[in-house]
């Protein structure tokens, strides 16, 4: 019964993540960061490295959850998965030439953390990175509208009320913003 309950809990967590529920995302983020920070600090990294690696891993996990690439096996499956992805990403950094050149690499550290050979989960493909970059640089009115609709999952009616527009105009505005984003992404791509 316990196992079933815990799995149910994981599934609820995955559903909350899929809908970008900020309480679930924040809880997951805060609870799992210390372990990753400890890993990075003890293996030649700094706090800044830890934050970057963790956030990258967090976004990868979120993507996998959204795409149903991740299926929980037990009650802490997602947490373990997040840690493993962060760890793999940190191994990649340690292995990278740039890092080796810039730091006095503690080879022992690399040996310690390289103890399991999980496939490299780098799903942030170039296209996605370009779109993220384009969205980052999109003007604020469009950015805010798209964020509210696609990330915060607000209804078109609520957004229209806030913008003091009717829903049809808001829909048009949203479409124009997506087009603008696409143009920006295409420019970056070139």
């Amino acid at each position, binding site marked *: 019964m316990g196992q079933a309950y815990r799995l149910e809990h994981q599934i609820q967590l995955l559903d909350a993540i899929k809908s970008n529920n900020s309480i679930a995302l924040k809880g997951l983020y805060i609870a799992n960061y*210390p372990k990753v920070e400890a890993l990075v600090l003890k293996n030649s990294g700094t706090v800044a490295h830890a934050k970057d690696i963790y956030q990258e891993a967090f976004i990868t996990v979120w993507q996998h959850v959204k795409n149903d690439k991740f299926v929980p096996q037990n009650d802490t499956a997602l947490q373990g998965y997040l840690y493993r992805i962060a760890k793999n990403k940190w191994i990649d950094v340690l292995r990278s030439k740039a890092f080796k050149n810039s730091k006095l690499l503690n080879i022992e550290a690399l040996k*310690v953390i390289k103890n399991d050979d999980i496939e490299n989960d780098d799903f942030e493909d170039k296209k996605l990175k370009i779109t*993220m970059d384009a969205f980052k640089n999109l003007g604020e009115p469009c950015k805010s509208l798209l964020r509210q609709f696609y*990330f915060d999952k607000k209804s078109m009616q609520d957004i229209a009320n806030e913008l003091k527009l009717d829903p049809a105009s808001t829909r048009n505005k949203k479409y124009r913003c997506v087009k603008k984003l696409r143009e920006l992404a295409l420019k970056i791509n070139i």
Partner: protein
Amino acid sequence: MNPNINISQKLLETVEQYLNKTLDADKLKAFEDRLKNDLEFKTQVEDIKTMLLGIEAQSLKETLDDFHKETKTAPHNITKRKTATNKSLWNFGKFAAAAAIIIAVGSIWFFSHSPNQNLYAKYFKPDPGLPTTMSSTDNYDFYDAMVNYKRGDYALAIDKWQTLLTQKPENDTLNYFIGVAHLANKNETEAIPFLERSVLSEDAFPLISDAYHYLGLAYLKDGNLTLAKKNFELSQSEASKQIIIELND
């Protein structure tokens, strides 16, 4: 993304419905059939999916920085898992390597700077700390504080080491690190007594040269040139030797 492919508002909204699983059965079937058979349509849908994912991913990324402000640091976890063992507490095997790194870093750093009047500012660089490895099960409290020290949380590191010092008041390594943490925390007056105790070590203290070096720096900053010189002279480090030359100039 293909710049030659146009995306209409209708298509955008249909893809949204498809992703949200709100397409009714007939439309879903037609949509999936077209995905299978129409390559251009498939590309359009993929482009839209990437864009919508990009919007969400970047929004999430920007949210994560807010979450980050509420994270606790690693040592909280480590403390929970602490093992109460005191054996081989002060194993200096790794310390010699650390000393070598300190000297190397110090030398590189020294030679990359040109002389100026503010000797302290020129020569002071915080001790990089000791390597903390994941396999350390002994001596958790000491390395726990070392993690704080390396993060730049000098005050927290000092607090934790002070607790250990009450059990081992004469310990050279503890006194040394509390001293250098005070110095890194811009508190040379506090640093001096600890560094003084560290150089009184009766054992072969591998960091002795560094201890004299930092003690010299602490006195230099404190304005006591005589004691600064005395300690630089006792240090074997290259940086100390160079400071003496500059002080004598």
